[in-house]
């Protein structure tokens, strides 16, 4: 139904709402995926949800129709003056009467409004819960920047062993930093590994992971050297700008490192992995710590 050239005018003039709703949706979606700060991600989430609500409300709009509340002449209870005898004698005054098609056009469509009351409240409930999560994350990791949290998590998972052996990356790490490859379907995964690759291009070229695991098409496992740099930067406390952990680590190495930093050359054979896991097993067994939950 479009002649040429009128698509632009159609989209920009008559239905600016639909275009603006798409723009807001994209802003929200991009913020949820790309923003580093957790609170910014939440603001992006709220913008994403309000954009969808804008779409629903603009579906229910009728040209020249009033709000979906009965005007006094259709009011089921009659004008309030005669409210007393309103409901006994239905017929005497204009009690509730079924409106014919002409009058229906006068009121805008109430159904999308009802649906959006629910969507707004669901949005606020999700926002409240996510803010509680931010508080817990801040308590646990002292930061609400996504990449600092990830560095801390890897630091904690690696730091649980007294003897720091550059444990070859087991795939649980790439699972957390699993980058969902942009398959033909748009990926929604906001997993942090894209951020990790943001940092790594500036550092040395990554060696492939020494584990025997075949390199999956999507997963970019982090090489031990990269791991050493990350753990060094975490142990010495990440600097103000975590974006460049490599340089930050070198600048901040002056502080005495608490853990002896043994960096045996990680031999990419299963044996290295076996010995490290065996050592890990012996290390973890004598201290029957409650399992890291």
């Amino acid at each position, binding site marked *: 139904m479009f002649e040429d050239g009128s*698509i632009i005018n159609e*989209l920009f003039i*008559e*239905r600016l709402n*639909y275009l603006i709703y*798409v723009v807001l*949706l*994209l802003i929200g*979606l*991009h913020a949820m*995926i*790309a923003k580093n700060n957790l609170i910014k991600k939440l603001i992006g989430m709220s913008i994403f949800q309000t954009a969808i609500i804008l779409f629903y409300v603009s579906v*229910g*709009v*009728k*040209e020249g*129709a009033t*709000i*979906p*509340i*009965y005007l006094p002449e*259709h*009011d*089921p*209870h009659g004008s309030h003056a005669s409210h007393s005898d309103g*409901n006994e004698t239905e017929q005497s005054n204009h009690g*509730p*009467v*079924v*409106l*014919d098609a002409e009058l229906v056009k006068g*009121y*805008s*469509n*109430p*159904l999308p*409004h*009802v649906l959006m*009351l*629910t969507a707004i*409240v669901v949005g*606020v*409930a999700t926002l*409240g*819960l996510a803010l*509680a999560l931010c*508080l*817990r994350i*801040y*308590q*646990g*990791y*002292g930061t609400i920047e996504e990449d600092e949290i990830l560095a801390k998590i890897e630091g904690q998972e690696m730091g649980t062993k007294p003897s720091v052996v550059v444990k070859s990356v087991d795939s649980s790490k790439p699972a957390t930093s699993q980058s969902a490859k*942009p398959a033909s379907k*748009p*990926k*929604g995964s906001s997993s942090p590994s*894209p951020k990790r*690759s*943001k940092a790594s291009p500036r550092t040395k070229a990554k060696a492939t992971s020494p584990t025997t695991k075949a390199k999956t098409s999507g997963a970019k496992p982090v090489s031990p050297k990269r791991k050493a740099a990350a753990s060094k930067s975490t142990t010495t406390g990440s600097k103000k700008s975590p974006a460049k952990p490599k340089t930050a680590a070198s600048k901040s190495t002056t502080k005495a490192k608490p853990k002896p930093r043994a960096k045996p050359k990680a031999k990419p054979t299963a044996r290295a992995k076996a010995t490290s896991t065996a050592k890990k097993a012996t290390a973890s067994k004598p201290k029957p710590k409650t399992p890291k939950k």
Partner: protein
Amino acid sequence: MKKLSLIPVLLVGALLIYAAEDFPEWGSPSAPASASPLSSHFISNTGVDTEVPNMVTAVLADYRGFDTMFETVVVFIAGMAVLAILKNSSGPNSKKKIFHIETEPDIIVTNTVRLLIPVIQIFAFYVLAHGHVSPGGGFQGGVVMGASFIMIALSWDLDTALARFPVERCTVVAGLGIILYGGIGLLSMFLGGEFLDYAELANIFPVSREMARYHAMLGVEIGVGLTVTAIMFSLYANLSTEGRLKGGL
């Protein structure tokens, strides 16, 4: 990395623009959504079925009342989940309070708020009760009432607000709201109709079937208002003090 994430975003955008050219005319009464038997039934028959002038409240509380019950349950879940997450939560950074200023509440603020609170709460009741005729209803009224308690917490301190509305009572009031909502549904089920079929209440109340729906909707709105008030205040109390319910904003 930011460029990398632009690809899926633009893919979704292209998808939505591709769909936009097939949308019906803007705001035309003949569009499928507006001309469907569903919405024309709501507009023409709300007066007859439920005698409620505000169609949105009628559809919200009666026609699609089951949706609204689960919406109230979602608010209840948000409150319980925040309580569950933050209760006796601890961690290396939780205890350091950066800027806890020990100042007693400001005179001007407290006196103006002392005058404002009753007005706000009366307005909240009005919004809740008058939801049938004017825009408003359970959610809006409940939030305004919750906001009045938050204002007490902001102007005095959280302990005075908690003295008036302790968090345990929040959970009980929220639960009572859902029990009131579900209870009306159950009552109408025991009287022979389906769940949430308010017309059956006419068997025990001396009103016509439509007026039974009218009054049942008011009862349901009160239930929603109770839950939303309690949960909004409990949400604020928990989030501003990391679950310790001391200090706060």
